[in-house]
């Protein structure tokens, strides 16, 4: 059995399709935006492991890359960064 790719192909069972953005672009929930200062970041990966949304990608060199389409702006990464390399900046209109 191949897994259905579209709604149309869905069998008559309540089976859901794993989807990035199942709840939409959750980045729109944000009021404050985490911004990484790469010159002070020590690549410790703590922000990556603590992000509840998996919105931080850990690059090959262990530096963080924030996906603003899905980051909800909770501020955990900024609060936990041991060297304060992440600041929360107010979103523009």
């Amino acid at each position, binding site marked *: 059995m191949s897994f259905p790719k579209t709604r149309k192909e869905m069998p008559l069972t309540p089976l859901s399709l*794993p*989807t990035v*953005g*199942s*709840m939409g*672009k959750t980045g729109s929930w944000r009021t404050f935006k985490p911004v990484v200062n790469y010159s002070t970041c020590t690549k410790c990966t703590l922000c990556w492991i*603590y992000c509840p*949304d*998996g919105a931080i990608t850990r690059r090959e060199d262990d530096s963080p890359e924030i996906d603003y389409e899905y980051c909800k702006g909770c501020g*955990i990464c900024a609060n936990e960064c041991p060297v304060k390399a992440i600041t929360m900046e107010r979103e523009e209109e």
Partner: protein
Amino acid sequence: MVSIKELPREEYLLKGHAACAGCGPSIALRLLFKALGNKVFLVVPACCTTVIQGPYPYTSFAVPLQNMLFEATGATASGIAAALRIRGLEDITVVGWAGDGGTVDIGIQALSGAAERETNFIYICYDNEAYGNTGLQRSGATPYGAWTTTTPTGKKERKKNMPFIMAAHKIPYVATACPSYPTDFVNKLRKAKEIKGTKYIHVLAPCPTGWRYDSSKTVEIGRLAVQTGIWALYEIENGKFRLNFPSDRLVDKAKRKPIKEYLSMQERFRHLTEAEIEKIQMWIDEDWEYYRKLASSEACV
């Protein structure tokens, strides 16, 4: 002890999910997948996680998962474990993942039955100390003094000690965890996976929406829960109790932070009087006297 950098990059909780910003249980879920990968079969009853899964026909979970009635996680996991065994798919770890209401209150009988039948699975209670999904009613795991919508002046009763109830089932492995200590949780999950029988892990998972604190403080509050000793990290392996780092350094009361530091960060405790705070502190100290005796004796739980 595994280090954070050794954990895999793969994500099986996909971004764009429905949890509130700063959700502690979501961090715990990501850690579950970091520890066990995708060779798992999850059983999830009604709880916040059902919402985090996303609206049909889409889901944020990239692993097999069966939703079940609020009270039936243990029974369902038993059935799934039996089916996998019969089909020879025993490399798949069955995981029951339920909230505190679904565990310490309504799911306790199905879980107790599964443990008594020695069902081969890991049961995880992620404890946000209330019925979060339905708007924050008190549960048996809500701590003394906490505000919820059904305890408007603070809960008058104490939190149920679920890990010890599970230890009384003589299962091979019981542990506590908190997502603020990621490697401790991952180690416990990996250890549990290798043990046959019923394994129970109780995870304190701070919830900004229910506990009323700023969403950036989730990890900090979990850390304070451990540093003040209101939450202790331990394992009970074949009945033998052992404190884990950093709780093993906190047996001496002078090493623990005063509980007031933890309580004053959360609005759910805002109304507490000094006398009530003192009472909570006294109970914590009593618990630790018990932990000290257990950890230093040969006796089993």
